[in-house]
């Protein structure tokens, strides 16, 4: 007998603020096959999971439906809970009432609740027809590809090599080192960036398992976790590399808001990165410095904080004063974000050394104008509550890091998502950091969002550690979503053979009975064959015609019979 348990998640306020969870629970209780329906504040929490497990035992459940967030991030967690409670993980069905409901209908609580009921009804209908499945295995090619040889990519590559994993490092420019090539000292501790990069690069240079491809890009990507085929191309040739995992470390670049604050109009208006170049040569060409923080960030259209600029401004002010104790430095800021013990000390130090801090507002940004040979910066000082005019012979714009234009290409090639600012989106910020939702592809560093060099190294090493899991295991489990043939129904018409994108199906003759047969290792579970079959002789596990048909029936029923 089918005994379905339904668990509706509040997800704190994320779901409950739009969806009336208790009403959905009451509705779920009326659905066919449901013997238990309950709700959790956070189903994914330890407490939530153990209450689900307890309920499976107490109510002798043999199907579990959780209505919460997205299966793309949380399905493994709940499947594991089912397994731990003794039921096959393929008897679990996920209903998405957060991303697909509460978050996108947050202003229509009634409609959101009704929709959640429909979605739960559909999930329950499918769950009733779920069958236990067994998983196959597939081998993992013991090789990794890292895209981008900035500090994150270098750290990831060195870490992979340190674990004995053959690694291909792909860099679009002609040198390794990324943005740090132009930065002499990185804060707040004052690390020498050259020696830092060199430490990683020497690991890479001396390793027989490292392959560095400069002036190269990814041209094509095929395959899945464990079995990727990456085409690496430069001007001269294309190279195909098979790999088990891929790390995206494509970084970010500095925004150059041409024409704003006089950039490109006055040679004495420069960006922070240009100042870094100047400082790395230890030559100052000015005396009065005005640094404008948040130049181009935390404003409409680019709302985010670029995180690294405040500390960079502080570090650079101190560098300027080190080189020329008579110089003057004014930092125009909107908030000084110098979090952490070391960075806060840097701020205190800059204050003590005479760096002047002037707070301005978004509404009244500083104005840069040229008069004669000099520059003047007019700014409304929020603390003094009056306009001041600063004499400057060099204006430095602390502009944000932005996603490079070619991240669109990378996103398309690797089929990984970006946020609205163009930075890559990981599978889940807290549960699956540095992982993409696509298995076997990882992300680190400023490709994800602007981070300091230190964080780049952490993330690069974290991505390497994650990537090494399937590689060191040597195999990955194949999700049981492959196609299977019912030879009694199959008439060997060959539709599926022709439709399969992977050549995974062939017609076989067994004792005079001709029928299609699926090679499970080759089948990737797309279901293209299923739609090509005219009599449902081939079915995809977990997505059968009966299961999806039942979902349609449930939607029709929920609409015609109401959800009250």
């Amino acid at each position, binding site marked *: 007998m089918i005994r379905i348990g339904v668990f509706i998640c509040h997800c704190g306020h994320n779901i409950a603020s739009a969806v009336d969870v208790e009403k959905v629970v009451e509705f779920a209780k009326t659905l066919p096959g449901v013997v238990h329906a309950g709700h959790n504040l956070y189903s994914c929490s330890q407490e939530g999971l153990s209450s689900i497990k307890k309920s499976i035992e107490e109510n002798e459940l043999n199907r579990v439906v959780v209505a919460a967030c997205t299966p*793309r991030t949380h399905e493994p967690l709940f499947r594991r809970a089912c397994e731990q409670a003794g039921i096959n993980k393929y008897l679990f069905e996920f209903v998405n009432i957060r991303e697909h409901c509460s978050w996108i209908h947050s202003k229509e609580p009634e409609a959101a609740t*009704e929709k959640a009921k429909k979605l739960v009804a*559909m999930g329950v209908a499918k769950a009733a027809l779920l069958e236990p499945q067994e998983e196959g295995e597939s081998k993992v090619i013991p090789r990794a590809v890292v895209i981008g040889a900035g500090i994150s990519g270098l750290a990831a590559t060195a870490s992979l090599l340190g674990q004995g994993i053959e690694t291909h490092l792909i860099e679009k420019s002609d040198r390794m080192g990324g943005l740090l090539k132009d930065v002499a000292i990185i804060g707040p501790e004052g690390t020498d960036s050259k020696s830092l990069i060199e430490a990683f690069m020497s690991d890479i240079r001396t390793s027989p398992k490292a392959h560095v491809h400069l002036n190269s890009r990814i041209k094509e990507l095929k395959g899945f976790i464990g079995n990727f085929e990456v085409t690496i191309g430069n001007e001269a040739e294309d190279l195909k590399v098979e790999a088990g995992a891929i790390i995206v470390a494509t970084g970010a670049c500095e925004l150059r808001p041409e024409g704003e604050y006089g950039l490109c109009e006055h040679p004495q208006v420069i960006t922070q990165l240009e100042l870094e170049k100047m400082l790395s040569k230890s030559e100052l060409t000015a005396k009065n410095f005005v640094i404008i923080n948040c130049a181009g960030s935390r404003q409409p259209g680019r709302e985010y904080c670029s995180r690294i600029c405040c500390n960079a401004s502080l570090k650079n002010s101190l560098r300027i004063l080190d080189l020329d104790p008579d110089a003057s430095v004014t930092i125009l800021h909107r908030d000084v974000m110098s979090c952490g013990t070391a960075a806060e000390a840097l701020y205190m130090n800059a204050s003590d050394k005479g760096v002047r801090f002037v707070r301005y507002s978004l509404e009244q940004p500083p104005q840069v104008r040229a008069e004669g040979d000099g520059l003047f910066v007019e700014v409304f000082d929020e603390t003094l509550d009056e306009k001041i005019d600063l004499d400057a012979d060099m204006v430095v714009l602390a502009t944000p890091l932005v996603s490079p234009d070619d991240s669109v290409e990378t996103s*398309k090639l690797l*089929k990984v998502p970006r946020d609205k600012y163009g930075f890559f989106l990981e599978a889940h910020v807290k549960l699956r950091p540095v992982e993409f939702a696509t298995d076997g592809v990882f992300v680190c560093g400023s490709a994800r969002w602007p981070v300091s060099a230190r964080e780049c190294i952490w993330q690069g090493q974290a991505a390497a550690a994650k990537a090494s899991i399937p590689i060191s295991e040597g195999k990955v489990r194949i999700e049981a979503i492959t196609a299977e043939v019912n030879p009694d129904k199959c008439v060997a018409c060959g539709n599926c053979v022709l439709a399969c994108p992977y050549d995974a199906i062939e017609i076989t003759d067994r004792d005079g009975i001709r029928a299609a047969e699926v090679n499970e290792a080759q089948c990737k579970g797309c279901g*293209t064959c299923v739609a090509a079959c005219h009599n449902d002789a081939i079915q995809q596990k977990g997505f059968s015609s009966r299961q*999806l048909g039942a979902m349609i029936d449930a939607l029709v029923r929920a609409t015609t019979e109401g959800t009250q």
Partner: protein
Amino acid sequence: MNEFNPNILAFCCNWCSYAGADLAGVNRLQMPPNVNVVRVMCSASVKPEYIFKAVSQGIDGVLVLGCHIGDCHYLTGNHRTAKRIPLAARLLGKVGIDPRRVRLDWVSAAEGEKFQQVVTEFVEDVKKLGPNPMKEVRF
């Protein structure tokens, strides 16, 4: 209460359009609550039979969303979708059901805004078409 609120079924492929729908959620993009998503692994697994079943039973519209051509997680799976679904939509027209009740579109994992736009447009379009006449038909 008299306003027609269409009941719409959407098939989204796991890799692109379902992820795109997730992204729309993450970005809190608001859209009409008429579309109910069924997750499939690839848009190419959407049998035209599902569309006919849904429309025959009074579902007002069916959305089929997949990866962009060339971006299919399954290489060329969606090439079949691109041919099957328009044929199925035309067939509906042949028996007198507006083919605009079926829409095929491509939404990538990065296109939360496109998902919002497609859903919003489709709901508007179906609202203009009015209720599925099959709701009133009893066989």
